[in-house]
């Protein structure tokens, strides 16, 4: 299986977007590339952009490797992607409003009702509750993979608390510092207006009772969370307070933050805490990260949570397999972005096929994330396959399976020099009462191990700057 290469296509050609970069790479001595790479690393260390790896005692703070060769998209490629992303996120929001409201899509048989009702992410507290301005998923991260010149698949929708946007911005920052000559050769669409767009989005969804200058804050689980750097980065760029659960209090269904001048009312909370932990009075009672009473304030309409509670039902992997039908049902249009062909193991025929072909397929747990509850058939050993076979037989509805995709590759600077490595792309889509926005590009993640298809940072993936050429 030969993967499509972002620079050379299926082999011999040189794709136009990469012409200048190719010339530059040919002239650049490897020592220079190595030097710039170590400068980039130094930059990231200095600013302290780290993430925590769960279960890794050695170092709780680690750098995600950064690759200095950018991934380049042309303007028409991006235009098509962006259109597809807007359509997809529109559908996600309409789907959420529907399953927590009239449930038309369930009645119409677009998706089996039990897939929604039995999903632990379908939050009963949200049923028949009108979220402020009707928007559920304010910040979405849609994982995209490419298999050929024209085909982009959505691999996963992240509708809860997608992370990584700080890497998108810092990657660009470091590239601008280290490779000014490359930016002189290319017209690269900027990404540094993301915080402004995010702030506008958050302001637009303030509750109607809020003042014209709503108070916004970013709620973090705290400095030991793997994405803490990003939380503090974003709070800083947005110019809003970075709060922990204990900084907030609820009185008479109004949320306040504890300040040196006493309690100050909060109108919009960009929360980076999962549903389960956000309110110990409603969800997990053992959560010390959340704010007791915040759900009650939310339901009284006195505060907006972004994203809304209960968006997880839309990015469930089993629901994912119905996304093409969902997009069509709600937008009345053909989906612009395709889904990866997916076997729903809850369907007996599909499961039989999956069990027969475990060595060829990627099997994913429907409620897992971060690549942990996953079997990559072609790279798995017998024991791993047998473990999954047992799981699949015991609980088929807990899984989906997909063919192993030939993710596109992109030239990457590795130990042996410049070589192709598999990449994906996570663009960030913002939805507010002010409409949908999406900065050009997103975060490109790269599997640094030769042949590996797993791009997750927790499994040895790195990142690249993503360029959308403006001309």
């Amino acid at each position, binding site marked *: 299986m030969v993967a499509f290469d972002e620079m050379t296509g299926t082999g011999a050609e040189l794709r136009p977007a990469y012409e200048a970069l190719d010339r530059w790479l040919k002239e650049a001595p490897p020592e220079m590339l190595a030097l710039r790479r170590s400068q980039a690393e130094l930059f990231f260390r200095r600013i302290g952009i780290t993430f925590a790896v769960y279960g890794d005692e050695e170092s709780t703070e680690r750098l995600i490797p950064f690759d200095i060769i950018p991934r380049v998209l042309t303007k028409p490629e991006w235009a098509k992607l962006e259109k597809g992303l807007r359509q997809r996120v529109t559908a996600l929001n309409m789907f959420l409003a529907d399953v927590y409201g009239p449930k038309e899509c369930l009645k119409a048989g677009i998706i089996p009702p*039990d897939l929604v*009702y039995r999903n632990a992410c379908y939050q*009963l507290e949200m*049923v028949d509750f009108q979220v402020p301005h009707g928007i559920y998923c304010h910040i979405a991260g849609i994982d995209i993979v490419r298999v050929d010149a024209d085909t982009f698949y959505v691999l996963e929708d992240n509708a809860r608390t997608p992370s990584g946007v700080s890497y998108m911005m810092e990657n660009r920052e470091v590239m601008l510092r280290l490779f000014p000559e490359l930016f002189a050769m290319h017209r690269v669409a900027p990404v540094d207006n993301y915080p402004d767009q995010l702030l506008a989005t958050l302001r637009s969804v303030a509750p109607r009772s809020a003042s014209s200058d709503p108070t916004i804050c970013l709620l973090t689980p705290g400095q030991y969370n793997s994405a803490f750097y990003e939380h503090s980065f974003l709070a800083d760029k947005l110019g809003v307070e970075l709060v922990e659960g204990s900084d907030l209090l609820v009185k008479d269904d109004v949320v306040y933050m504890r300040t040196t001048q006493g309690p100050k009312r909060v109108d919009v909370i960009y929360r980076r805490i999962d549903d389960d932990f956000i309110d110990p*009075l409603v969800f*997990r009672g053992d959560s010390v990260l959340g704010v007791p*009473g915040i759900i009650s304030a939310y339901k009284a309409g006195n505060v907006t949570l972004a994203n809304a509670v209960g968006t997880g039902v839309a990015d469930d992997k089993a629901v994912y397999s119905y996304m093409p039908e969902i997009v069509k049902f709600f937008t009345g249009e053909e989906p612009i972005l395709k889904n990866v062909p997916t076997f729903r193991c809850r369907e007996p025929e599909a499961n039989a096929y999956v069990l027969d072909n475990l060595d060829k397929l990627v099997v994913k747990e429907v409620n897992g994330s971060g690549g942990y509850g996953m079997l990559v058939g072609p790279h798995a050993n017998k024991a791993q396959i047998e473990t999954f076979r047992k799981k699949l037989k015991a609980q088929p509805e807990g899984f989906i399976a997909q063919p192993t995709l030939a993710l596109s590759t992109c030239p990457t600077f590795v130990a042996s020099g410049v070589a192709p490595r598999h990449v994906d792309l996570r663009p960030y889509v913002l939805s507010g009462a002010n409409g949908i926005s999406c900065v050009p590009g997103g975060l490109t993640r790269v599997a640094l191990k030769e042949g590996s298809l797993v791009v997750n940072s927790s499994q040895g993936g790195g990142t690249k700057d993503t360029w959308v050429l403006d001309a």
Partner: protein
Amino acid sequence: MRIRISHSITYAYDEPVRQLTQILRLTPRDHDGQHVMSWRIEPTVDGNLRAGQDAHGNIVHTFSADGPISDLAIHVGGVIETLDLAGVIRGTIERVPPDVFRRDTLLTTPDDALRDFAVAATRADSTPLAKMHALTEALHDLLACDRSGQRTGIGAAAAFAARGGIPQDLTHVFMTCARQLGIPARYVSGYVAQSDALPEAEGAHAWAEAHFDDYGWIGFDCANGLCPIDTHVRIAAGLDFADAAPVRGARKGGSGENLAVLVSARAANAQFANQ
């Protein structure tokens, strides 16, 4: 049967509480076979007590108070009139579809032993209803029930492995098995009155309800090995104990919490019932 209930939950704190919020699911609603004649809910500390409803339609009081508070008691009670409907539940408020109650939750996560047991205990029966009766009997025989009120729940799998637990645990075991068999099951918290039929059962109690396409919701009480009768007073229902918990709270300060609970549920003397 006319039942008089008196339930006191008393907290004493080593270090005073600065701020406290509690969610109280301690108020019954009317439905077929249950009529609330009188009911009160009284915290002994001044604060803000507001009534609302949760996702299931249970009546929820949110109580919040500012400290310093060293002692707090919540007194609830009243008089309920009940009828024996052989466990059939009708006239309740239903906010979410039965499919919701097929979810696994933290307290009702099955393990292999529970999966095997659910199938084995109900193999001889063909209808869902018969299977649930069989399950109730099997669990009543197999699991020891601790009614001391001194212990807290440990979850379905652990209770099953230990072959016993408090009524909450037995209920979770039943629900886990039912859900494994594809039958929606939910948790009910309430009270059981003293009676000749159940001489040891008096007090706060928990049981399960299972849903059948033909009959709707029917109650199953594994601790007592029967379907709820007119001694059972239904207070709240949910996905599991955590979802239907009588009291959930959060507080600032107040380390060293000492809890005491006193419950009585007795047949009300008709003479006093109308006060």
